[in-house]
């Protein structure tokens, strides 16, 4: 396992944390904001993209049945694109999460340092 993470999993000192203080720390607030700035738009995007798919396939048959790419229609390619979008967003998240992990690690070191 990655060392940075396995260290962060160790209890600092159970139940004696000043949670409010950590929460108000600037670095922590930046972490939460950075995460939110990725997760919120990404979630809205995939939900909109998915429901757009359901609505178009259900309510716009002329478009859904149109053939593109030889004999394959829009409906099937749209479905297939959901898989691609899911994988892409997932890859993007994992890439960004490396940054979240590094930020969390810095805060953890600060928290631990403050206690020593």
């Amino acid at each position, binding site marked *: *396992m990655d060392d940075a*993470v396995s260290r962060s999993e160790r209890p600092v000192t159970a139940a004696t*944390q000043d949670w409010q203080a950590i929460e108000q720390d600037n670095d922590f607030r930046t972490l939460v904001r950075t995460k939110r700035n990725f997760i919120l738009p990404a979630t809205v995007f995939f939900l909109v993209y998915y429901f757009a798919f359901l609505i178009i396939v*259900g309510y716009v048959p002329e478009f859904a049945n149109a053939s593109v790419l030889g004999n394959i229609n829009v409906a099937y390619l749209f*479905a297939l694109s959901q898989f691609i979008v899911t994988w892409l967003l997932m890859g993007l998240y994992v890439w960004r999460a490396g940054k979240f992990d590094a930020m969390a690690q810095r805060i953890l070191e600060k928290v631990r340092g403050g206690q020593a």
Partner: protein
Amino acid sequence: MTKEMQTLLMFGVIVVITLVVTYWASRRMRTTTDFYAAGRRIGGLQNGLAVAGDYMSAASFLGIAGLIAFFGYDGFMYSVGFLVAYLTVLFLVAEPLRNTGKFTMADVLSFRLRQRSVRTVAAISTLAVTLIYMIAQMVGAGSLVNILVPTLDYNLAIIIVGVLMICYVVFGGMLATTWVQIIKAVLLMGGTFLLSLLVLSHYNFSISAFFDAINHVTGQYCTAGGVLKNGQCTVGVPVTKTFLQPGLKYHGTFGQLDLISLGLALVLGTAGLPHILMRFYTVPNARTARSSVVWATVLIGIFYILTTFLGFGAALLVGKEHIKNQNLAAPLLAESVGGPIFLAFIAAVAFATILAVVAGLTIAGSSAFAHDIWVNVIKGGKENEREQVLVAKVTAVVIGLVSIGLALLLRNSNVAFLVGLAFAVAASANVPAIVLTLFWRRFNTAGMIAGMLAGLISSILLIVVSPAIMGIDPPGTPASAAHLIQAPALFPLENPGLISIPLGFLVAIVVSLLTRDAAAREAFSETNVRANLGINAEE
């Protein structure tokens, strides 16, 4: 050797392998963490395979193949929804859950909310989802095994499946359950891949030729809700579509809306399925939880794309008119492209699939009772390792016996709506509570309980009055296909999600806003910090 003997032999091989794994796991099981969470030592790829194993139930493998074989494109819509759902799991649930919880969904909730009431309601919801899902799997298993191996009758098949799943859980705990999932996932992926290749070989491995063939398969339905009989509609006029065009299953006034309702339940419901959530406690930390979702999504995605070849392949190479039972599309396709040995292999894969999923459900249900109700509600949080493991095992046996009993009782009923219901209940009752407790400071105990009960009760009530249960069948319809209540449906959609999911969220939010709960508000800091940093996460 007869076809039936070959299949039976393959089943036997699966049973022996899984029991060996269970014996091996039983020697490594001591603490409650071993029992519920496999000692939190499962790796990312392993857990990814296990999540995939827990998720790709017989409903996915046999059900979707059958739906595509019968209704073409519309069946494939399930595949899409089942996969996209993993973005909800990855973005909102997996890592915070691992960071704040211990064994169950209720752990995450009881953090900042009042333990006893929250755990009781969450455990009820978990047990409801688990049992609904379980009965769907068991009834399917009974009829499937009975068709594949006629000498094993329905009742005997149910009892064998039930006893095996109890053995895995009671003797091997989460470690055995995890490895059963992994074995099953590998077999299922391998079998599906091979089957797809064999199908494509009939088209000289040309995707274009394959789709060309699909474009020549057609299906028909009647407008105005009429029933098609010998090419004539009882009411309305017949509509013909090719198998690649949407609408053969979802059409009419409410068809598209039903599809959206189902889509909503699928895409949110996965993040509330107790047996999937529990898997994230089996890994050492949040980062491994993340990588296991990624592995699972890659595997599940490949599998669901391959359902194209399974489903359309069955429509092309077996033919809808030769498939008596929708669930048999994939096994029949296996026989037509690979002969009796391959049929036996695919049947055994389906059998392993069922065994693994019911074992995962059993352990999720037993943890909800033993960890939430027994230890934290009845015993007031005083843990006693040996006692808790014992209670969990007894609960697993009870859940197993209840499921066997219900499956025997419902053998001739039409239970196809149950998997959809399980997703709808999970999405309406569990997901609002999990998401709001993790991300909304103002959320409180009253809101959680009201929201969860509203989601649970409304989704169940709506399905009872929906066309999935209510409807008038023409005389002579077999019981296994007939509506349970012979009266016109009061609610137009088969899936309640479109109403019950927003309702679950709305009630949770409104009740939270109307009540004051300073403790819940203050404790949000702890949830927030722990969810994001993993301080004090369970080891």
